[in-house]
């Protein structure tokens, strides 16, 4: 995986592949304002157990570190997409938002972030159908869910 391009100030950290380190501690910057209900609720994982089980099957004895590779890739991908999502929202570019939702839809399903996947599905569908009323709100909703998943993924990586 390539290092993520650092762009807007809102994005707090850039992470390198395979590093299961807290982004905050590396960057030394303040973490973005984000509600973290999942975290303080003793991290009730947002990732679907069944999906995780399927991932584990790919590397049953964990010899190849598949789980951590997948999760860190996912994390990096989400961070990149989050940047692109924010930009698209600012440009009010619905098509770009739909394409990003499409991409996140399947990868999040693969990793078990089912809520995010569903959110992406409905966002993509309404955007493509032209029924989306409030793009900024939609982008905000998506961003918020992405943040939640990111937190869950980081928790998993730390574990």
């Amino acid at each position, binding site marked *: *995986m390539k290092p993520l391009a650092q762009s807007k100030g809102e994005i707090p950290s850039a992470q390198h592949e395979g590093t299961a380190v807290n982004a905050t501690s590396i960057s030394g910057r303040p973490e973005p304002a984000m509600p973290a209900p999942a975290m303080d609720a003793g991290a009730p994982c947002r990732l679907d157990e069944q*999906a995780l089980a*399927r*991932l584990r099957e*790919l*590397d049953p004895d964990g010899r190849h570190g*598949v789980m951590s*590779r*997948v999760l860190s*890739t*996912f994390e*990096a*991908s989400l961070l990149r997409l989050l940047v692109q999502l924010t930009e698209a929202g600012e440009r009010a570019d619905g098509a770009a938002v739909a*394409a990003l939702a*499409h*991409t996140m*839809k*399947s*990868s999040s*399903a*693969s*990793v078990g972030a089912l809520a995010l996947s569903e959110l992406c599905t409905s966002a993509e569908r309404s955007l493509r159908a032209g029924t989306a009323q409030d793009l900024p709100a939609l982008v905000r909703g998506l961003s918020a869910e992405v943040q939640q998943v990111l937190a869950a993924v980081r928790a998993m990586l730390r574990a």
Partner: protein
Amino acid sequence: MTPPHSFADDNLPAQPEVLLVDDDEVNLLLTALALRDRGFRVTEVDSGERALERLAEWTPDVVVLDAMMPGLDGFATCRALRSMSGFENIPVLMLTGLDDDASIARAYQAGATDFFVKATQWGLLAGRLQYLLRASRTRIELERSKAKLARAQDLARMGSFDWRRIEGGLAMSAEGLRVFGHGPTDRMTLRSLLRMVPKDGRRTLMRHLHEVLRDSSVLKRDVPIMLFDGRERIIHVEAEPEFNEHGHSTGYTGIVQDVTDRRVAEDRIRHLANFDALTGLPNRRQLIWRAERALEHARRLQHQFALLLIDLDRFKIINDTLGHAAGDELLMEVARRLRGCVRHSDQVLDVAMEAAGARSHRVLEAVGRLGGDEFVALLPEVGDDRDAERVAQRVLEVMREPIFVSGQECFVTASVGVAIYPRDGTTVLDLMRNSDVAMYSVKAQGKNAAAIYGPQLAGQGREKLELETALHKAIERDELVLHYQPKVDVRTAKMVGAEALMRWQRGDRLVMPGDFIPLAEETGLIVPLSEWALREAARQARAWQQSFGFADAIAVNLPSRLFERSDLIEHIHHCVTSVGVPHRVIMLEITEGQLMKDLQNVIPALHRLNEIGVEIAIDDFGTGYSSLAYLTTLPISELKIDIQFVRDLGHTPQSSAVVSAIIALARSLGLRVIAEGVENLRQMEVLHRLGCAIMQGYLFSRPIPPDEIERWLEQTVLPRKAPWIGQAGALEFGTDAARAAGARPY
């Protein structure tokens, strides 16, 4: 044990190579992991552009494309790779989102082989890829075998077609169109096809097609057609009916093949098998086939039919003197004439037989060639013997005209034997044999005539046949023996040579040469017989040389045809050298009659024989009409006075006049003279007085087996006990005294 994901049993690459294209890193990673886990070799790229770059230098077994990608998406990538050469048929799997019907349709439009809805069930994806690979392999093989089939059909001038009863009509493959002389884009209908069939065949074909369609039966038929360029071809059509689920015939599927060459070859083979190549007449096989049909017909309709065996009388002489080419020419002319003697039908087809109805056996009438100079006339219906005789006379008649071959006028006659069904035989074999018996009886009575078979002839023929067969085997069974008659010089009472005479020890019976030599001459067996005699005589000379110092010659009788053989000298040479005796121990006797008949052909051999030391005696001298002029130049050594003059000596003055003339002639030519058939002392006395001292006859000894010759020498000659010995000593010495000189123990 094969691992569950092995591809080995699918006849697929052990590790199929997959190009995986997805912009989403997570999916890319997960899909790659899953596929690797299942035995694929995965190359991952994250965009359509990268994918095309890779494909420019490498060909995977299968491409997996994510449909939605920024930049070049899956559809555009698929379209682009399909236009690259070599990727027209590569399997491409398009990954689409769930419920994305539009993408599925677009995937196919873009040229994807199949689509797969993205899911986290990796096993399904791997299974789908295996299926795609297998299908692709099958498709490649199918393309190959289709190409092979097309080529094979083209070589076999074969094509396939479909015909639908309702819509569609006739659909002919490109190869099939070519069979009919059409280009691959031409259209053909059943109607246009039928128009290519010549009118006379079209009606029967139509009728046949209607019947086949009505019964939904198999169509299998050779159809003669005429191409647009006027060439005639024979097309073999073979088709099977097809049925729908209700069992109704929906049409036909089948092949067409140009079988013209095969048919022409078949016809040619049939003709070669049934007709004589030289004369064009039916051959033995065809004749027998016709005779069998004629016999069936005659039996059913209770009438007679006749078989005439025609054998040329002097053909062999013509063949031998004028050469084979002339012989062939003559046979062709004879065939042409014989053909005119009957209502000859050249072709007999089963259809012709059917079509002709009750008189159908008439088409069997023909003259055919059995082989060599033997012909057969088959008369499928005769009222009585006279019908057959009339035809036989016509045959003799047409031969009377001279035949010109090689610029020469030849006269050929024929001997005809007739056998009539049912009287002279109830099988074709019997009829053939009995016509042969009748023909031989004609030959025996002077040839150039016809005879109808009769039971009185049968014995002769059969006996002769048996004799011939037995004689064939006589040599190999060692049944032949030579007996020897001594030649005696009466002045010294000594043996001065011996004549070898052939006997046939047939079972317990000793057959005399008069009973088998003529047959041997007729059949040509005389050649091996004579060669055997030479071999045996040389062997005997050697045996006698060892047992009692024999140093004279054994005379062997040879027919003139042997002298014409180029290998005679070589054969004699071989006979004497193999037993280690000089050439002069063999002396050859040829009768005056034979010598004069074939003089020109025999002379060169006589000279050569003389050169190697083999002496020649003229047998039966005085009976033929020797040209005295020839006698002076011929390289001969001895004249043998014929037995009839010797027998009459002392009874008729003429005979002693002839004998003394012969003796005088011999003396003037410097030849030995010897008298045969001397039976009593009186003959001996007269001969001696006339100047002939060497004799042969019962007075001295009959022809006896070789071991008896030794006994005769020991018990009669040496003790000087025989009556002729005392007598001989009392005689005056003749002029041949010098020749008889030399003290030998016998």
